[in-house]
Each structure stands twice: as C-alpha cells, then as structure tokens.
C-alpha cells in the first residue's frame, strides 16, 4: 500500500495543473501564497502568468466594451479589432466600482476552480486507495487458495485462514 507521502506526490500533480490553469486564465494575482508556493516548487515562474490580459480579464473588458458601444456596433466588431483595442491601450482604466466587480467575479471563479481541484483530488485519492486495497486483498486470497490446494485444505479452512 502506498503511504500518505507517496499519495500526496501523486495528488500534487492535480493541484499543480489546475493552479496553472487558474494562473493562466485568471491571472497570477488571484493565486494565494500557498498556490504560488506549490507552483514555484513545481518549477514554474509565476511572474506574469496569464500575461497583461488574462482571458478572464479580456472577457470582462469585452463585456464592458459591448455595453459601451451597444448591440449594433458590437455585432460589427471582429475579434482582431478587440485585440487591437487592448494592445493600443484604447480602453479606459477600470473605475473603483468596476475594479470591485471584477475582483469579486474573479474570486468567485477562483473558488469554483479550487472546489473542482479538491473534488478531483478526493476522487483520485479514493480510487487509488480502493484499487490498491483490492489488489492487496486479491493477492492474499490467491496466496491462501494456492497454499490450500497444495495442502489439500477444505474451502472452509481456506476461508478461515484468510480471516
């Protein structure tokens, strides 16, 4: 049976990958100190993770832009127009209220993804423990049956020996 340290080594890969997804899509600022330590320990440079415009921020700015220019003009916009709008810094900085809205939304998404990380970890841990336990039990049963056949034991005695 694997020890808790070995299982943690396995589960760490789940955290590492999900945290990397969070960092790239939501930006490094949303990562907690513990998250940052995990990623740094895994060999990642977290500075600037997600770039200047992480996808989540882009979505927020896009929502704001479409609200400002209206439905009619938004329908005529192409994605490259939006990219140029960001690159050329044509957008207004977020107002303090928008900043709060963005931070709250990003934090909520971060918590959803962290819950997903925990669920995946729990399921994988459960599967590993169940499978390894079953393999160990099967090995014991096989061993006892083989011994029982050699020693011409009855089924009842074999079962009794397995305990």
């Amino acid at each position, binding site marked *: 049976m694997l020890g808790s340290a070995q299982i943690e080594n396995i589960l760490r890969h789940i955290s590492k990958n*999900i945290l990397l997804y969070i960092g790239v899509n939501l930006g490094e600022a949303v990562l907690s100190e513990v998250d940052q330590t995990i990623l740094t320990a895994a060999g990642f440079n977290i500075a600037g993770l997600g770039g200047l415009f992480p996808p989540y921020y882009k979505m927020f700015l896009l929502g704001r832009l479409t609200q400002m220019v209206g439905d009619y003009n938004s329908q005529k*916009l192409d994605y490259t127009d939006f990219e140029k709008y960001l690159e050329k810094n044509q957008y207004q900085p977020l107002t303090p209220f928008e900043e709060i809205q963005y931070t709250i939304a990003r934090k909520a998404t971060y918590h959803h993804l962290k819950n997903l990380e925990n669920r995946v970890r729990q399921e994988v841990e459960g599967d590993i423990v169940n499978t390894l336990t079953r393999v160990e039990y099967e090995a014991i049963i096989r061993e006892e049956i083989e011994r029982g056949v050699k020693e011409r034991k009855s089924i009842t005695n074999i079962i009794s020996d397995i305990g």
Partner: protein
Amino acid sequence: MQQNKHLDPPRYPRLILPIEEGMKRSFTVTAKKILIDVTKQLTKEIKQK
C-alpha cells in the same frame, strides 16, 4: 416556455468565441496533463514501493 439563457447563441459570436474556445481548449489540455502526470507518478511510486 422560458428559454435557457446558456443555450442561446451568443450575441457577438465573432467576439466571444475565440476567448471562450481558448479557455475551453486550455481546460482540455489541463485535464489531459493531469491524467498523464498522475499516471506517471503513480507508476513511479508503485515501482519504488
């Protein structure tokens, strides 16, 4: 009958889809990486046992 908003087509498909698709693709890559990394580490730990 009330329509499910999530099933409605996006109002600005040319704008939203590239970002959404990028995030979805990134998630698929993450899930595959988890599968590969966990399997590799599990094999390593069992061999070392």
